[in-house]
């Protein structure tokens, strides 16, 4: 059945993939194993821009629609649409024409209800809202009004032709929707888990909203095991644990993982703060030389992480820099110093990090398991280069861009493991990795990503002049900056 899905107007690229992931989680796709069939049907209202908050989605049942909406972070509401129109007259005709058997059960005298008037792109005064509600008397509401905790919530949502120069997606004409709320996101999660009040933070701790989105993309739920190979302060695992998953994390920096900033300020105390189940284990391990036994396969249901891209935090791997370049022979630690020795580490390029992550995921994810991670991209002239790392075991099912600055964004990639791991697969993946490295990241290697992000615009050839021209000719639509 088709439902009206209204999104919060933020993180635009992340909205539909979240609903798709939750549809998968709540069984909307049944037993069909063909990965390309496992996606929802979407429609946009006539002449609406894809960035519009209004979408129509076809979901198999109201229960699934409710589960999806209630667990999501970006769905303002999923509504059973009773009517829509360009004017209140049209709306009235539409609602009157909507089948009684769909309406009457929710208008019954024993139930309580509330009507909420909402608008997108404009503000309505309290008086205007009341007038709208008064205009709905043709609907035979028999129940009592309960503003605090009604059985049923009805929404009257209006959007208008508010012009094109205010940073919102362009809308051609007025449209009014009236529907019964089936479910809505619980945004109260965000102030509860916000980083501002978190016990133990690090410089790259994932903010709560994004961590929940990642956990949803990874299908975190009770009975599943989620792994973060770059766990840091555990911000991503917290979100997964909130949804009931068992968690496990590793980091190359032992101070972050074992010591934190004291006995009450470490990863464990973060989990304590929210009353969440502790991670099954945290370990210090190098993703480049992992400590897993050979033959260990398909253990994790999801790997959700934010790898170091070398911009704000650089990755490290085992081996000293001079050692790996052959300038110096390996250092043999004297026996009495062995137990406290902190091995030297070398810079870990983004490309190599990606390859190791994909290899780890190919080996350790169950079939159908999800790999969710952030990938940094440079933006040129407002468009984004879309060459992502690939691996024969994986199918990319979602990529969502979050613009961070004029020249730089991060993309959340969601990959599903669709092919089993074998030595041959590993070999062909290595070849693909070398191609990728040569073709696409020639200039991102050697830390150029960092300098590209932080250098002043003048050093970018021709960029400064182009951006001046662009600013004048294009209307100021904010698009994915929200």
């Amino acid at each position: 059945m088709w439902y009206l899905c209204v999104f919060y107007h933020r993180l635009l690229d992340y909205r539909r993939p979240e609903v798709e992931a939750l549809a998968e989680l709540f069984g909307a796709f049944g037993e069909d194993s063909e990965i390309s069939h496992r996606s929802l049907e979407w429609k946009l209202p006539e002449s609406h821009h894809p960035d519009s908050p209004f979408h129509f989605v076809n979901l198999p049942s109201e229960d699934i629609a409710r589960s999806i909406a209630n667990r999501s972070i970006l769905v303002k509401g999923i509504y059973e649409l009773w009517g829509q129109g360009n004017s209140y007259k049209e709306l009235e005709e539409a609602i009157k024409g909507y089948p009684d058997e769909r309406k009457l059960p929710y208008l019954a005298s024993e139930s309580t209800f509330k009507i909420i008037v909402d608008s997108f792109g404009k503000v309505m005064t309290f008086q205007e809202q009341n007038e709208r509600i008064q205009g709905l008397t043709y609907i035979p509401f028999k129940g009592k009004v309960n503003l605090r905790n009604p059985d049923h919530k009805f929404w009257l949502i209006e959007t208008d032709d508010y012009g094109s120069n205010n940073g919102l997606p362009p809308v051609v004409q007025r449209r009014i929707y009236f529907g019964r709320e089936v479910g809505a996101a619980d945004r109260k999660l965000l102030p509860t888990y916000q980083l501002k009040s978190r016990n133990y933070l690090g410089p790259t701790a994932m903010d709560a909203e994004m961590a929940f989105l990642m956990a949803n993309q990874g299908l975190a739920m009770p009975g599943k095991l989620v792994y973060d190979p770059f766990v840091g302060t555990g911000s991503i695992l917290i979100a997964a644990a909130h949804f009931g998953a068992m968690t496990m994390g590793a980091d190359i920096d032992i101070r972050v993982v074992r010591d934190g900033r004291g006995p009450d300020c470490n990863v464990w105390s973060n989990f304590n703060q929210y009353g969440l189940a502790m991670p099954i284990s945290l370990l210090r391990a190098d993703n480049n030389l992992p400590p897993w036994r050979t033959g260990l396969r398909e253990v994790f249901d999801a790997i959700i992480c934010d790898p170091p891209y070398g911009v704000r935090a650089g990755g490290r791997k085992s081996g000293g820099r001079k050692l790996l370049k052959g300038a110096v022979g390996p250092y043999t630690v004297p026996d009495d110093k062995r137990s406290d020795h902190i091995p030297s580490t070398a810079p870990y390029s983004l490309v190599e990090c990606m390859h190791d992550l994909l290899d780890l995921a190919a080996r350790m994810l169950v079939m159908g398991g999800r790999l969710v991670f952030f990938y940094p991209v440079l933006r040129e002239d407002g468009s984004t280069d879309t060459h992502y790392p690939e691996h024969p075991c994986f199918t990319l099912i979602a990529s969502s861009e979050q613009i961070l600055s004029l020249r730089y964004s991060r993309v959340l990639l969601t990959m599903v493991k669709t092919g089993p791991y074998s030595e041959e697969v590993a070999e062909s993946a290595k070849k693909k990795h070398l191609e990728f490295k040569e073709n696409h990241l020639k200039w991102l290697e050697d830390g150029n990503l960092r300098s590209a992000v932080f250098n002043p615009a003048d050093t970018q050839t021709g960029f400064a002049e182009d951006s001046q021209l662009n600013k004048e000719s294009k209307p100021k639509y904010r698009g994915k900056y929200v």
Partner: protein
Amino acid sequence: MRLLTHNMLSCNIKGVTNGFPLRLEVEKFVEKEVDFSAEFLRNIFPKIEWKALVDASRSMGYSQLPDEADSSMLDSDDFLKKFHHALLELHLEEGVLICPETGRRFPVNKGIPNMLLHEDEV
């Protein structure tokens, strides 16, 4: 460090072929309660090296696991409880993991094993 983790770790020093399972030297061990999830246990059971788990739990002082196990035993509540206890509730706080082939010692401090290899082992 729980025995689930121990069951996954091995010594991967260059040239070592028999780095699993690591021997446990227990200095401080705790029992921590973990929520029971039969579904999780059933999912993880096929990935566990049973003998390694039995030996490890014995060195932590728990000898109630059967020497051998197969998936039919997952239907028994009693077995699941023992499995759950050994896998998730026995916690090594301080100790050492020792490689069976080279004798290399991996310390476990505050429950966190340090599996990082030194420069000459890479």
